[in-house]
């Protein structure tokens, strides 16, 4: 298909991008890697009048070490994120999740910040961002603000980033806990039916703390907080399996072609146990 006609602005700075968004009004839309937006445009499910390309803004590219945390420019590609040594050392879970996104061609185009701002409930990145206690830097007409992960994902395809705002970067506190992103899907390139992002702090064979994010179990990625609480003190596979039985608690799983809600809930329990075991080595 062919998208409707639109204007295109290639921004070189945040300010220029914000100005373009403002002048484009409510029909303007940010494009970065385009891997989610272009199919939507081609199917004419969205008909924006202006596309503001943020893929060339220096400030939005690359990964930097901020001492206690690392900061990732929102327009860094998935490939750039997963192959970055800072990410691999301090936020391995994010690298693991990013490596499961689609296929290499898409990972070389699509951006991790774009996936976060797009907030598809089946996307792999938001669950990892939740588990890693990520914070988000958003620029808007009134300046910049920082939003915590728990306040970032609001609803289906909806985040704290307003229509006149831009996600500039996101920061992850350095984390050396064991981690695993376990994705359950039907083909290698398919979306997750369920995904589980787990980071686990194990001391002396006992789980001290765990943070678990779930993909595609609600309108947004969610934390499996009941499981997290139940895991404290776990030291055996049986303990983990028992804790993981709570994985679907409080979720709002939906039904689609690949999974009915009850099956999705069942999978969440099974895959959570597997992810925690992989992350903890227990």
């Amino acid at each position, binding site marked *: *298909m*062919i998208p*409707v*006609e639109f204007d295109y602005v290639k921004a070189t700075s945040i300010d220029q991008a914000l100005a373009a968004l403002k002048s484009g009004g409510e029909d303007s839309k940010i494009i970065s890697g385009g891997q989610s937006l272009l199919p939507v445009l081609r*199917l004419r499910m969205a008909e924006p009048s202006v596309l503001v390309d943020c893929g060339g803004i220096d400030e939005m590219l690359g990964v930097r070490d901020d001492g206690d945390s690392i900061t990732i420019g929102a327009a860094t590609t998935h490939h750039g994120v997963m192959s970055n040594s800072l990410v691999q050392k301090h936020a391995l879970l994010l690298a693991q999740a990013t490596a499961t996104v689609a*296929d290499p061609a898409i990972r070389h185009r699509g951006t991790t910040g774009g996936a976060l701002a797009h907030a598809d409930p089946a996307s792999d990145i938001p669950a990892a961002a939740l588990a890693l206690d990520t914070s988000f830097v958003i620029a808007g007409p009134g300046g910049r603000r920082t939003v915590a992960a728990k306040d970032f994902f609001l609803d289906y395809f909806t985040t704290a980033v307003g229509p006149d705002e831009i996600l500039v970067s996101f920061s992850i506190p350095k984390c050396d806990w064991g981690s695993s992103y376990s994705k*359950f899907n*039907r*083909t*290698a*390139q*398919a*979306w997750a*039916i369920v995904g589980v992002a787990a980071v686990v702090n194990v001391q002396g064979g006992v789980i001290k703390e765990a943070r678990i994010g779930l993909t595609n179990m609600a309108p947004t990625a969610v934390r499996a907080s009941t499981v997290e609480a139940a895991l404290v003190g776990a030291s055996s596979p049986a303990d983990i399996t028992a804790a993981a039985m709570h994985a679907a608690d409080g979720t709002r799983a939906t039904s689609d*072609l*690949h*999974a*009915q809600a*009850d*099956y999705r809930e*069942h*999978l969440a329990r*099974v*895959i959570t146990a597997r992810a925690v075991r992989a992350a903890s080595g227990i």
Partner: protein
Amino acid sequence: MTAAVETDTAIGKPIRRKEDAHLLHGQTNWTDNIQLPGTVHMAILRSPMAHAKITKLDVSGALKQPGVVAAYGAKELGDLNGGVPCVWPVTDDIKMPAFPALAIDKVRQVGDCVAVVLATSVAAAVDALDSIVVSYEQLPAVTDMEAALGSGSALVHDEIETNACYVYKMPCGDYEASRAKADVVVARRFINQRLIPTFMEPRSVVAAPMGMSDEITIWSATQIPHVLRVLLALVTGIPENNLRVVAPDVGGGFGGKLQCYREEILVTNLAKKLGRPVKWTETRSENLVATHHGRDQIQDIEIAATKDGKILGLKVTLLANMGAYLQIITPGVPLLGMFMYPAIYKMDSYDFTCTGVFTNKTPTDAYRGAGRPESTYAIERIVDELAAEIGMEPMELRKKNWIKHEEFPFTTVAGLTYDTGNYEAATEKALAMFDYDGLRAEQAQRRASGDPVQLGIGISTFTEMCGLAPSRTLGALKYVAGGWEHCTVRALPTGKIEVVTGTSPHGQGHETAWSQIASSILGVPVEDIEVIHSDTGRAPYGMDTYGSRSLAVGGQAIKAASERLVEKARVIAAHQLECSASDLEFVNGSFQVKGDPSKSQALGAVAFEAFTAHNLPPGVEPTLQAEATIDPEDFSYPHGTHLAALEVDTETGQVKLRKYVCVDDVGMQVNPMIVEGQVHGGVAQGIAQALFEGAEYDDDGNLLTASLADYLIPSAADLPSFETGSTVTPSTTHPLGTKGVGEAGTIASTPAIINGIVDALRHLGVTDVAMPAAPQTVWRAIQTAKGGAK
């Protein structure tokens, strides 16, 4: 006789494909790449509803849009709204409702063409679709075949007063007598789900009036340029001798481009009407809903046997989904499988009934295997179920019932005579490659330990019929065409060879394989041979490519024409060398006087003499060419044994294919590397039916799997490395000893996978798993067997 010539590129050598350099370097000429001056682009307004009255249609708004040249609904198109042809009226009383290119008054499937816009750019044409005013009055959609046949169902076609298209019966022997004698009768219902032939290159067609002449040239991404030319002439009324059809480089088809599509009719008629080139290329979204679909049968299968495993009879009762309309061979596809349900097994009786059913879905038609994957799935599944029922090892049951190699030629209960086969040899080789006994031991161990991951072993010992087809047989089945194939071989003055074939490749490697056949006979290197195909202007005679016929039938024509060329040349060479023709032997591309090798003339030199015509023998005409049009003596019957080892995660239902071994007997192999490639692709496509692919509709007739995000096609990442082997039992009814390989893997692999899944779970009480065996489906089958949730 002409002795075969041994060259480095002769028959049997796994040389690299001549086609691949072009493909790999982006030098191909897809139809959508064709850009002619003055082209207008067609965009199609398609029905969003499966069944509805068109209560209003006004295209005038589109005419006011920028770049728009014309816009038509059925009313505006009038006589140019040609009907899509069906060439296989399988019974005398078949119902064949009209299928106009643009829907008239009523739409019957999501994707039905309602109106078209022609504009100077694709974008302008697509934009202008929004300016067409159309209203629908929704009607109840017919989506379920059994409900469609019940009284009170809505009718897809009111004028035929039923949704039953036809009922075809073929009783062979007395099944009821077999059933009465049987100790065991096993009955199962299998669903052979609807599939979408998602070839890589979408459909595309360009039609252009060619200036001073009345010729209209049509470039189309089709498998059947020759058949299409005839059909377009009949449908459009444009004289056949004014139509030239070219299939440029074509990127896959799998039967999906074996068609005379409504879009091809529209583009041809509109190019003539507007007097300028018209072009249309489908989007992937259109492809999924408007390219014909495949399979979609409900199969009620019953097998009768003795308690020690002797098969007595088989009963097959099918409901075959035609979809909303009949296309080129829609009704005949189930009949291509009809003869093959008894497969490799001996039995006393076989009873076949098929009812074709209209529904408000995309029409079905040929898809890789066309009827034979359905039959093979049913027989190989039911044989496994019979084995379980009587407590016999499934391979032992097969061995007990299959035709033994010394019994060929063998006439089956369905009336076909299989010329050759050696099921014992292929099976023995496959079992050895597979480590069958070792895997069975591991399976027993996992069962005993209650491993959450269970191992299953799936068997498929298949045969198929290839090489469509003896024309007389096709006639007896009411198919309105022949099954012959043509070849012209020309020796040019410079010694180069042109092989003109009527087959029409779309990825198979004909240019290489056909060159190898000619090279073997003419002694000319492959690089000096050009294969001309897929253009009715340059290769006027042919029946095109489908049903694994190109080598089995077309290969014979190449052999015969090449041999005739040698005999023509021999007469000229004898004249030149002043000897009698019988004194010449043809060795490595050169005629030599027997006993005096110093006196010789190469084929190229003979060709030059034929060109200059200065010194030809009396009665011999200038130029050196020969042709052959061959009607095959019979079908060919490739066979093989496919074995799959699968791990089934009982906690999630996910199936992981661990090992896949197949030994195929496709007869003589012209190019073993191409054979292997065909087997690999075919096996992957058959596994895709078993595990991944399935077109899903809702109750309103909306296609739910309408994008490749939902219609799942596996990639290499989802499949193991296949282990392929072969045995060679040459066909005796085909002069090259070849049988055909294009569909073998697809036909064989599907039941191997499902048999393997059921084998992994049978101890839990699972006796069947629906296709595609998605994790959720497998998990639910386990839960149901356990007596748990749904």
